[in-house]
C-alpha cells in the first residue's frame, strides 16, 4: 500500500487535484467562519458585477444575495450529497456483487438480471423516478443517485470474487476448513476492494454531476443553495449577467475534473499491485 502511495505522490496532476479537493472540502466545512455572510440573506444591490465591490467579490444574484457565500454553501450540498450517494452506491453494489459471486447458480442469475434491468433503464430517468416518488429532500436525492449507479461496483466486485475464488490462497482457506462466512469476510472481500476503491472516484464524479443536473432541473431541495440550482437561477438573466451561471459551473467543472484526476492517479497507483500474481 505504501508503494501505491508513493506512486500516487509522484503523479503531479493527481497530487495537485487531491490538494485542491482538500482545500475545497475545508472551505465548504468552514464556510460560516471563512465568509460569514448568510447565503440566503439579501445583502446588497441585486446583480452586482463581480470584482467591483470588495464586500461581494463575486457579485450578487438577482435578489442581492452574495454569490461567494452561495458558492461556498453550495459546495456543502454538492459534496455531501455526492459523497453520501457514492458511498451508498458502492455499499449496495459491493453487497450485491459479493452475494452474486459467492452464491452462484440461480441467485447469481437473478441478481445479475436485476443488475441488467437497472442498467437498461437510463440512469438519470431512474433518478428522476425515485425523486418524483420520494420527494425532493436531500435523502431521497442520495437514494435516487445510489439507485442509478450501484450496478458498476456490483459487476466489478462479482467479477473480482469469481476470479479470486480460483486462486490458491482461497482454495487453501477452503481446504483448511475455514467457515464460508469467514472466507467471504476476511479473505475475499479485502482482496476484492482495491478495484472498487479505484472506481470510487468515478462514482463520486458522476454523483456530483447527477446531483447538479437534478438541482438544475429544480428537483432537489429548493430551500438551500446548490451549484446546479444557482446555474438555473442565473439562466433567467443569462444574456445580461452570464457570470451568475458561469461561477457555479466553473466550480462544478473544477471539482469533477479534480475528482477524475485523483481517480486516475489512484488507478495508476493501484493497478501494478493488481497485475502482480
Amino acid at each position, binding site marked *: 500500500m505504501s508503494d501505491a502511495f508513493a506512486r500516487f505522490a509522484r503523479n503531479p496532476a493527481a497530487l495537485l487535484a487531491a490538494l485542491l479537493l482538500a482545500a475545497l472540502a475545508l472551505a465548504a466545512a468552514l464556510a460560516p467562519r471563512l465568509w460569514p455572510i448568510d447565503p440566503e440573506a439579501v445583502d446588497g444591490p441585486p446583480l452586482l458585477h463581480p470584482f467591483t465591490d470588495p464586500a461581494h467579490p463575486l457579485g450578487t444574484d438577482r435578489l442581492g444575495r452574495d454569490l461567494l457565500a452561495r458558492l461556498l454553501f453550495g459546495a456543502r450540498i454538492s459534496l455531501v450529497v455526492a459523497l453520501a450517494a457514492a458511498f451508498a452506491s458502492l455499499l449496495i453494489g459491493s453487497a450485491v456483487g459479493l452475494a452474486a459471486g459467492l452464491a452462484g447458480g440461480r441467485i447469481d442469475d437473478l441478481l445479475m438480471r436485476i443488475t441488467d*434491468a437497472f442498467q437498461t433503464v437510463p440512469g438519470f430517468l431512474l433518478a428522476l423516478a425515485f425523486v418524483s416518488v420520494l420527494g425532493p429532500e436531500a435523502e431521497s436525492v442520495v437514494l435516487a443517485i445510489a439507485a442509478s449507479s450501484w450496478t458498476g461496483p456490483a459487476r466489478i466486485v462479482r467479477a473480482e470474487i469469481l476470479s479470486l475464488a480460483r486462486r490458491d490462497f482461497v482454495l487453501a482457506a477452503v481446504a483448511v476448513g475455514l467457515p464460508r462466512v469467514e472466507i467471504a469476510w476476511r479473505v475475499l472481500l479485502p482482496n476484492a476492494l482495491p478495484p472498487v476503491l479505484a472506481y470510487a472516484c468515478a462514482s463520486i464524479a458522476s454523483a456530483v454531476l447527477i446531483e447538479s443536473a437534478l438541482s*438544475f432541473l429544480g428537483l432537489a431541495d429548493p430551500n438551500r443553495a446548490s451549484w446546479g440550482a444557482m446555474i438555473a437561477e442565473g439562466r433567467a438573466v*443569462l444574456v445580461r449577467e452570464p457570470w451568475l451561471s458561469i461561477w457555479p459551473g466553473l466550480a462544478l467543472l473544477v471539482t469533477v475534473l479534480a475528482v477524475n484526476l485523483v481517480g486516475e492517479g489512484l488507478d495508476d497507483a493501484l493497478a501494478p499491485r493488481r497485475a502482480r500474481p
Partner: protein
Amino acid sequence: MARGLIGSPEPVATSGAEANTPLPRHPALLLARRRLAQAPIVLLIVITGAFLLLEAAPGDAVDAYLAGLGGDAGLVAELRRRWGLDRSGPTRFLLYLAGLATGDLGWSVSFGRPVLAVIVERLPITLVLAGAATLLAFALGTGLGLLAGARPGGPLDRLLSATALLLNAVPTFWLGLLLVLVFAVRLRWLPSAGIETIGAGHTGLARLLDIARHLVLPTLTLGLVYAALYLRLLRAGMVEAWRSDYVRAARAKGIPRRRLVLRHVARNALLPVVTMLGLQSATLVGGSVVVESVFAVPGLGRLAAEAVTQRDVPLLLGIVIVSAVLVVLVNLVIDLLYARLDPRVELAARTP
C-alpha cells in the same frame, strides 16, 4: 445473417440449437443470442420495478384520470372497481401487465391523455437528436482519438487528451448554456431554443432546414460530451496496442506507418468503442432530459422532466419502460454490429 438470428424461434444459446445454425460460432453472436433470451426477463424486472414505484407514489390511476375532470366518491369507487384497483396487489400487477401487453401504459395526469399517445408524439424528436449526437460523437471521437493515439505523448495527443479530460468533467447543461452564450447570443448564428421558428410558416424543405438549425446546438452539446468519451477510449486502446507483440512484429516487418496505425493499432481498439456505443445508449436518453430542458426541445427527455415537476408518475414510468425497450433493442443491434467488425468473424466466414 443478423436478421436470421433475430427471427430465430429458438433464441436460447444451447449447444443443441447452435448445431442447426450454419453461422460461425462467434462469441459476440452467442452474446447477442443470450441477450435476446434474457431480454424478456430483464424487461419484466424493469416493469415490476415500475409497478412498485407506481404503487409507492401517492394517488392511483383513478385519481390521475379524474384530476382534470372531477368526480364524486361514487364515481371514484365505481371506476376503481371497473379498473380492478380494489383487488389485491398481485391481481393489480397482472392487470398492469395485461394493460402493457395491449399498449396501455396508463393515463397521464398532466396531459389528460393516454401515456402512450403522449410518448409516441414526443419520441421522434429525441430519436433524431440522440441519433445525430451519437453520429457526431462517434465520428469526432474516433477521428480525433485516431489522431491522438497515432502518436501517444505527442503535442497533438496532449492537446486532444486535455480537451477530452475537460469535456468529461463538464456538466452537460452548463456546456449547453455556454454554447448558447457564444453561438446564439454573441455571434447570433443559431437559435437558442425551441424546435422551429414559431410563426415563420415554413413548409417542406424550408421547415426541415429550420428544424435542423434548431437542433444544431442541442446535438453539439450532447455530441461533444460523448465524443470526449470515445476519444479517450479509442486512445487508451491504441496506447495498449502499441505495446503489443503483434504491432511490434508488424513494425519490425517495416509496414508503412499509416497502414500500421489503421490496420493494426486502431482496428482492435475500435471494438470497445462499439461496445460503449451500446452501453451509452441508456445514458444518452438520460442526457437528453437535461439537454432538451436547456434548449426547450419538446422531446421525450423534456417530457420526463415535465412529468416530474407535474408529479405525473404514470407518464414518467411509461417513459422509463419505453426507453428500457429502446435500450434493449439498441444493444442487440450493437452486439450484431460487433460481430461484423471483429476481424475473427471474417476469418470464420472464409474458412469453410
